[in-house]
């Protein structure tokens, strides 16, 4: 059970690393999604509580909500990225872009 949770933590960390390390916005957005998945995994993994046969339903509800939020966030992010790319020609953030 903790195995999955640890994998979740791992995913979160990898995502964080990618978010900071890569300049391309698509990679950053993907990294955020990976982080989100990591957290969802943790939530699911920890839903099975000791001493109970039935897994807790609340985390599942949370994950579903979380996924909905993540999808909309990703959609917004992608839109923004496309607009930015159209505006600057590059899908990257750079200090030099300011006038």
């Amino acid at each position, binding site marked *: 059970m903790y195995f999955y949770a640890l994998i979740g933590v791992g995913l*979160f960390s990898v995502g*964080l690393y990618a*978010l900071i390390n890569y300049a391309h*916005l698509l990679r*950053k957005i993907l990294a*955020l999604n990976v*982080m*989100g998945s990591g*957290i969802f995994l*943790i*939530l699911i993994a*920890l839903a099975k*509580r000791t001493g109970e046969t039935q897994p*807790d*339903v*609340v*985390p599942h*509800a*949370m994950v579903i*909500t*979380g996924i909905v*939020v993540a999808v*909309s*966030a990703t959609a*917004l*992010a992608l839109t*923004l*990225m496309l*607009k*930015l790319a159209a*505006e*600057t020609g590059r899908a990257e*953030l*750079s200090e030099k*872009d*300011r*006038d």
Partner: protein
Amino acid sequence: MEVVFKEFPWVAVLILLPLLGGIVCFLFSGIAKFTGLMTVFFTALSVLGLGWQIFDNGVYRHAVGGWGAPLGIDLYADGLSLLMLAATAFVALGVSVYSAGYFERGYSTRFWPIWLFLLGALNALFLTADIFNLYVTLELMGLAAVALAGLAGGKNALTGAMRYLLATLLGSLVYLLGVALLYHGFGTVDITLLAQRAEASPVIWAAFGLIAAGLMLKTALFPLHFWLPPAHGSAPPPVSALLSALVVKASFYILLRLWLEIFGPLVSNTDVSTLFGLLGAAAILWGSVQALRQTRLKLMIAYSTVAQIGYLFLAFPLATAAGVAAWSAAMYLAFSHALAKAAMFLAAGNMLRFGGHDRISDLDRVVQRLPLAAAAFALAGMSIMGLPPSGGFIGKWLMLEVAIKQGRWEIVIVMILGGLLAAAYIFKVLGHTFTQAPSPHESKAVPASMEWSALLLAIAAVLLGFLAIPVLSLLNIGNPFGISEVTP
């Protein structure tokens, strides 16, 4: 009639009305402006209703659909929530009137739905009683805010919005991880239950660390403020006003709520509050100095927000010995900052619209030609500087009093320095508004609604200086800051 008013589920109205209004605006873009204004107006009235309700009946708790924790959604309103709701309502009214004049047709249809959506999310956030719903509202608020920030298009705005989006998503996710840990540890997301169940343990520490980090990022506490100036500085002025006045305060509200209810008693270790205090002090000094160095008006105001956030965090080290007074001071500062900063951004927007630029040194005789905007800027500046009589002064006075009573001279000095620096950057602007710029420019007319909304918000920020007693007594409904001491 009175009974109806008192029993009426104002909280539900507060959340649903803006969402509904947002949908209407989205569907019928022709009446977006009218619907938006009406919605905001009635939402503000509902805050009044809720205020009356909890003033008479005390704390309000409502389980949506009768489900109750842990599965259902609990709504909770005490003085603290009410104060934040009131701030939201005031700023919302001002900004909405302003936006009605500011946004032209094309932008208007996009602005109103998102803005009402944001309003709904904010109201929901302030009324939520469980930490997971806090996450959801936080995320909704963040997304709406990003959408607004990018509304204007253009390179700067989009870059700022993108940066903002990444920061806010990262913050939310880190917060969510903390929530997951807390749920795992104590099997509930309801704040009250958590407060009962939680005990000092590594889980608490880990959760606290994550939650605090996420929220600090979203609140833009130094040194995690990097995303704020570009986002606030390049968004359209009414949006900047909303972001600076409300959105950053919302995440601070969550941090404060959780600290008060859950973490404060458990990790009440002076190191943590000292760290918050240190970061707050650094934010004040750094933000102010940066603001002073800016040549663009809106960026200057954005950095000023960074500095003003710092004051809120100064309350942490002070609250260990004098909870109520310190928190009252912080919330008073937050409230008046919301009004003043909104007014300031709106006034800056007027100057921007008027002159077509916001270079501080080229502000060309604004005082003569745009007196209301200059007055709004000056009055808002008064509150930001903490000059009497203004809301900012009362907040600073309360905080200084606590600090001096505790002998925390370093905090006193930081606060005074912050005030002086604020005066320096605000009067730098005002000085230039009197003089003729080296390159005079053509001016563009500014609608009266935009001028007056900014001015009225600024006046409200100043008048807040005279309303300390009612506001503080409202704030203490439900005793949000614990009962460790009597009201000062």
